[in-house]
């Protein structure tokens, strides 16, 4: 009987071997996949198991954690001024995951990041509870407040950048939402989430980074930069030989001007009164490929990472001559995020040097050690210093004598440059136009702030009154004022 016994013994050994192999397959080969599976609640449980680190503005946290004593998710996220800061923080919800900074810097905030390994090990020996690290932002509370309150009940967005460094100072989007309202996983949180999802005003959309709009006339500064850079204009006060009306190439439609005095207007004058014909013709002369080149140096056709990802702004690469002429005045396929227009303004205000926009200043360990500090970084040089200063002259002219008068700050030693935009959109321009305003402030030490404002739809304003100068400029002014005040 021993021969079959030995064989059965081998069979039993094979059974155990099969289990061992299966276990290796499960716990070694498939471990990562199973661990990261969307159905696996452990990631979320771990995220809320300890006091979560905070997101910090001006030295004060704009987030918090409360102990909910829940057996699944112990700590719940709270937000200070949730709706105002939502475009910056994003949300961290026990039921609906997280996004933006809350998600991108999750490792630091939960304390699970590898860079916190020594910190974790140390607290293991000292017996301290595990804590998350902090994310310190570049934002300015005053600027953000001015932007958010300026937008008020309007739909729109504001982005303010410090041109010298690329630090984002304000990032507002309205209508907004309160991330606290669905931070947990109760029925109430679910209701709040579903209501936000179904809201046709899309409060969860981060308009400052993720929505692309037709830029309208504010795009003319890009066209002006392209014309100067490619040598089509050397003297901004020389007449431009523009007929009135100007016929768009490959089309029989004459281009109308809302402004008067555009015939043969100089570049300076054309920007001041916002002549469509002059810039359309200029864009055509520069040509599509050169226009694309300048636009892309400003950051068009690429996503930006602040580190929150923005949508890519569009300057169409395949359009015909007529399309290019229309795009040069911010119509046709041109579309931009508010962030992109703020970058354009910042590059001009910074004498042609575009800095990489960023909103995370540093990452800190729970013991306040700095783990990572972001340094300003040059992104590109869309135009020369000389040309940038020429455009500054023109933009300051817009504020002093033109459509941007509402942005004038009347502060000593501070020059304000700006450009209005009223972007027609919708079928046959039937929808209410978007009101744009871009501007910067400049002192002797350089430019401390550049702002882009868009007001999408302005309930209660007559259609005729919608204009960049009327609606958006005061908001930009308030933001610039707030930044300048906090500097002095």
């Amino acid at each position, binding site marked *: *009987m021993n021969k079959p016994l*030995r064989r059965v013994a081998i069979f*039993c*050994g094979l059974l*155990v071997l099969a289990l061992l192999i299966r276990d290796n397959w499960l*716990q070694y080969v498939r471990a990562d996949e199973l661990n990261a599976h969307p*159905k696996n609640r452990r990631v979320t449980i771990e995220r809320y198991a300890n006091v979560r680190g905070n997101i910090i503005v001006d030295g004060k946290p704009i987030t918090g954690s409360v102990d909910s004593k829940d*057996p699944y998710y112990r700590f719940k996220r709270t937000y200070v001024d949730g709706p105002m800061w939502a475009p910056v923080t994003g949300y961290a919800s026990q039921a609906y995951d997280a996004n933006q900074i809350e998600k991108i810097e999750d490792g630091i905030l939960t304390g699970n990041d590898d860079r916190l390994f020594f910190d974790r090990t140390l607290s293991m020996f000292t017996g301290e509870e595990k804590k998350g690290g902090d994310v310190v932002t570049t934002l300015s509370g005053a600027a953000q407040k001015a932007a958010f309150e300026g937008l008020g009940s309007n739909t729109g967005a504001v982005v303010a950048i410090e041109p010298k460094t690329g630090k984002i100072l304000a990032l507002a989007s309205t209508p907004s939402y309160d991330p606290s309202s669905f931070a947990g996983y109760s029925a109430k949180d679910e209701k709040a989430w579903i209501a936000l999802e179904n809201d046709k005003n899309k409060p969860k959309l981060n308009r400052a980074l993720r929505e692309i709009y037709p830029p309208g006339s504010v795009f003319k500064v890009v066209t002006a930069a392209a014309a100067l850079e490619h040598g089509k204009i050397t003297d901004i006060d020389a007449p431009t030989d523009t007929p009135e009306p100007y016929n768009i190439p490959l089309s029989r439609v004459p281009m109308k001007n809302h402004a008067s005095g555009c015939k043969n207007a100089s570049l300076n004058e054309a920007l001041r009164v916002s002549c469509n014909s002059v810039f359309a013709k200029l864009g055509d002369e520069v040509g599509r490929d050169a226009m694309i080149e300048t636009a892309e140096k400003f950051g068009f056709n690429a996503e930006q990472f602040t580190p929150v990802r923005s949508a890519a702004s569009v300057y169409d690469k395949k359009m015909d001559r007529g399309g290019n002429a229309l795009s040069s005045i911010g119509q046709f396929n041109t579309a931009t995020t508010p962030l992109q227009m703020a970058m354009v303004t910042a590059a001009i205000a910074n004498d042609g040097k575009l800095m990489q926009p960023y909103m995370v200043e540093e990452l800190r360990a729970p013991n306040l050690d700095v783990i990572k500090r972001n340094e300003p970084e040059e992104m590109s040089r869309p135009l020369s210093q000389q040309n940038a200063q020429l455009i500054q002259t023109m933009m300051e002219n817009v504020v002093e004598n033109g459509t941007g008068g509402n942005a004038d700050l009347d502060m000593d030693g501070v020059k304000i440059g700006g450009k209005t935009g009223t972007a027609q959109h919708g079928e046959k321009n039937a929808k209410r136009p978007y009101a744009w305003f871009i501007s910067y402030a400049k002192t002797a030490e350089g430019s401390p702030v550049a702002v882009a404002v868009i007001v999408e739809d302005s309930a209660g304003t007559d259609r005729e009154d919608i204009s960049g100068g009327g609606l958006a400029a005061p908001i930009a002014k308030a933001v610039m004022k707030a930044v300048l005040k906090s500097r002095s």
Partner: protein
Amino acid sequence: MSVVTNTTTIGAIEAPSRRNTELALLAFAVAIPVFAYLNVGLAIDGEVPAGMLGYGLGLGLLASVAHLVVRKFAPYADPLLLPLATLLNGMGLVLIWRLDQSPRIINRYKTFSPDAPSQMLYSAIAVAMFVGVLLLLKDHRVLQRYTYISMVAALVLLLLPLVPGLGADVLGAKIWISVAGFSIQPGEFAKIILAVFFSGYLMVKRDALALASRRFMGLYLPRGRDLGPILTIWAVSLLILVFENDLGTSLLFFGMFVIMLYVATERTSWVVMGLLMSTAGAVVVGSTATHVKSRVAAWLDPFECLKTAPEGSNMAAACDQMTQVLMSFGSGGILGTGLGQGNSDLIGFAANSDFIFATVGEELGLAGVMVFLLLYGLIIERGVRTALAARDPFGKLLAMGLSGAFALQVFVVAGGVMGLIPLTGMTMPFLAYGGSSVIANWALIGILIRISDTARRPAPAPAPSPDAEMTQVVRP
């Protein structure tokens, strides 16, 4: 000149009993769970658990009693079996206690009561059972007398859960009976009793089964009348499967029978037939019974099945549980999260019984699971070794049957929770919560120890031969 010398060809040299080895191993088998207990307490509450002393003493006491009984009544027994069983039982207690601490499980079941104290009680009863087996069963060959009584007893036990009023249907499987407030899983005991019946029956019939057969297509086909018992067993296991919805038990019994038949007859044809019949049975039942169907679906692709299964259905529940178990294993990774620091309680229902292995997987990781599998592998290996060493065919068959059944049970349960085979509702021996299981498995270890004691006992000294003097080597 003495009879016992190194120069005689037949010597009754005192074989080492290895009792001290067993004692040393037992010290480890008690110390490891005590440290594990400390670990859980520190991980969950940050302090030394209050019950650690009592718990350690309890386990130590059980181990010492078992050891003393073995030392006295089975001095030549295998030294590994008792420490292995003690270690597994002790770790099982730690894991159950760990799950008792889970606020999620407490929250989920309104009438929650911790299971570890009752498991401790069951373990005490189980060790008493072990002691009883060693005291009452002086010689395992006595069991041969009860061959047919065993058969009847096993059948009665197996069919008890079908008796109305006695059987309890727990989530689709009718494998429990409840007597005076206690629920018993008779299948666990039937396993041992059936092994006794098979050994007795096969020992008598092995020649008839092995030799009286016709050759057909290279296989030895048995005669019709010898085929009777195997067909009966097949039918009974199918009945269990159909009426009690218990895939695991029927697989276990049938597998055990085929193994023992093969060992007894040394004919491969029986194995082939057994495989064919079990495949046929599994296919028929698998395609008709919904309970089995949903488990097969949960086995094939649990994540996919979770999406397609109708909400709230039995299938959705089975698939959800399977995904939870797999994620538990996956999250454990190589080294695990550490005892008390995992989330295996997300599995919810039966986390500490059928699915306790998932807690091992998550909290002790790949390393821990492999250790546990090797511990089970060692028990099986010692069982097979006992079968090889046994001198009588009944003992061989019984030892092989018991260790084969043990191997199959470990494979079916661990393979089920790890998604290697469809899930069946059986318990991981010693580890899982459940009185019937722990008592029956301690009894199984008791019988194996008894057989190994008989097998390893040195042959009695030969009678002094008057001619011995004549054949001595002459030495200077």
